């Protein structure tokens, strides 16, 4: 199981990484491993705005559809169109090529409310018990 140190995490297993003025979000390795093979990803329109905790899309595995939630409030500036033809990137590279959205944060201080890597790792350990 991989835990990226450079990102912050939500309890619902999304991660968010600072990228200049923007933020990049995907789902964690723990999340993709629990879901299994991802066969479809539904992503929002560029320009859509969401509040922290809003569902912005759906990650569909073989057996289940899972909403994915905004780690911070913001406006979508880009979605990962590669996932349209190759949703398995979410499994293969959850912190890299399998990213979901880029957004411009409207409440930047929400970053500090998220779990850092050690806290998230501890949280997932507790889920396994």
């Amino acid at each position, binding site marked *: 199981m991989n835990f990226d140190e450079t990102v912050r995490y939500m309890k619902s297993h999304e991660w968010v990484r600072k990228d200049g003025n923007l933020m990049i979000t995907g789902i964690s390795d723990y999340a993709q491993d629990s879901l*299994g*093979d991802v*066969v*479809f990803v*539904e992503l929002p329109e560029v320009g859509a705005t969401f509040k922290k905790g809003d569902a912005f899309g*759906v990650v*569909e595995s*073989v*057996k289940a*559809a899972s909403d994915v939630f905004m780690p911070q409030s913001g406006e979508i500036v880009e979605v990962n169109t590669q996932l*349209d033809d190759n949703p*398995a990137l979410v*499994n293969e590279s959850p912190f890299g090529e399998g990213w979901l959205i880029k957004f411009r944060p409207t409440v930047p201080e929400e970053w500090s409310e998220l779990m850092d890597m050690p806290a998230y790792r501890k949280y997932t350990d507790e889920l396994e018990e």
Partner: protein
Amino acid sequence: MSGILNKTLLHPWHSAHGARFTEFAGWDMPIRYERGPVAEHRLVRASCGLFDISHMGRFVVRGEPSTAFLDELLSSPIAGLRSGQSSYALMCRDDGGVLDDVFVYRISATHTFGEEGWLVVVNASNREKDLSWMRAHEKSGLTIVDASADIAMIAVQGPRAIELVDLLCGGQAGSVERFFSRECAFDGIPALMGRTGYTGEDGVELYVAAGSAVNLWEKILESAERAGIEAGPIGLAARDSLRFEPGFPLYGHELSEERTPLEAGLKWACDFSKPFAGSDAMVVRARSEDAVRLVTLRMVDKAVPREGFPVFDAVDCHERVGIVVSGMYAPTVDGYYANAYVPAHNAVRDTPYSVEVHGRLKSAIVVKRPIYRPSYRSA
């Protein structure tokens, strides 16, 4: 949760080999292994997969009236089966609703089962209901034994399955005709081998004394490794997509007590030259104005249709006309498909529909069934 669930004898093996489990019909069953369901699906289509299907129910029916009893209860031509032959069949209520879909084998005297008789393999979810139904229709001189706990069941499926099994039984698998069975020793382990399966690939289903199940399973995998035949265990998620592509129904989805075999497109499994439970009623229902029909929809707009999603008329999008009973990404044909019940008068190929997926209408179209042609049918 797992404390109250049944476990097959192979459960510890699955655990030790990276299986994730799910509750299925009261059983704690592997849903997938480490390679994941899409790769498992492809392994069966390309080479060979092993399935622990010991959770299914197995009844042995014996006695003088057993042939007539099963012929009246089941939809297929039971009385015409020869020794060793098997058939897919529906067991229906008197109103034509499907109680279960089963595989029935006429077995000669075997080491595994003892005296000659009939083996009826039923869905795990329906085992108790089926047994009650059969016992309610029992005739004198008949014995119905639930042998589910004594006999384990392993399916070996894929284009290299016969070659693999032949390594253990002296080449006998290849000489068993499709839908026939024979008892063989597999490196010393006796088992009944049926040339049957539910994946659309060639292969066998093995019935083995429960105590030998793990041994036989491991021997098959060891043989595969020695012979360089790629093989591995397959979980329920891939089992579902493997049965979906060749158009095989799954009870609780395509089949239920609310639908008849004719609505489910299973006329081929019904022998109307004889009376059988529900035979008249299902014909009457098929002629009614509100008759429904199972169709396969290909999603024109990319989306994963799932069980329970509503189906709408493509023109008048306000009118809900049908319901999805199974839907998924189909790996071999690389697309998103649904099986849905729609009005029987609007079920021909190329009919457009809309499926509501997560609150949005997605275009879909009726396609020819099956979406994947089983290899043994084209051979």
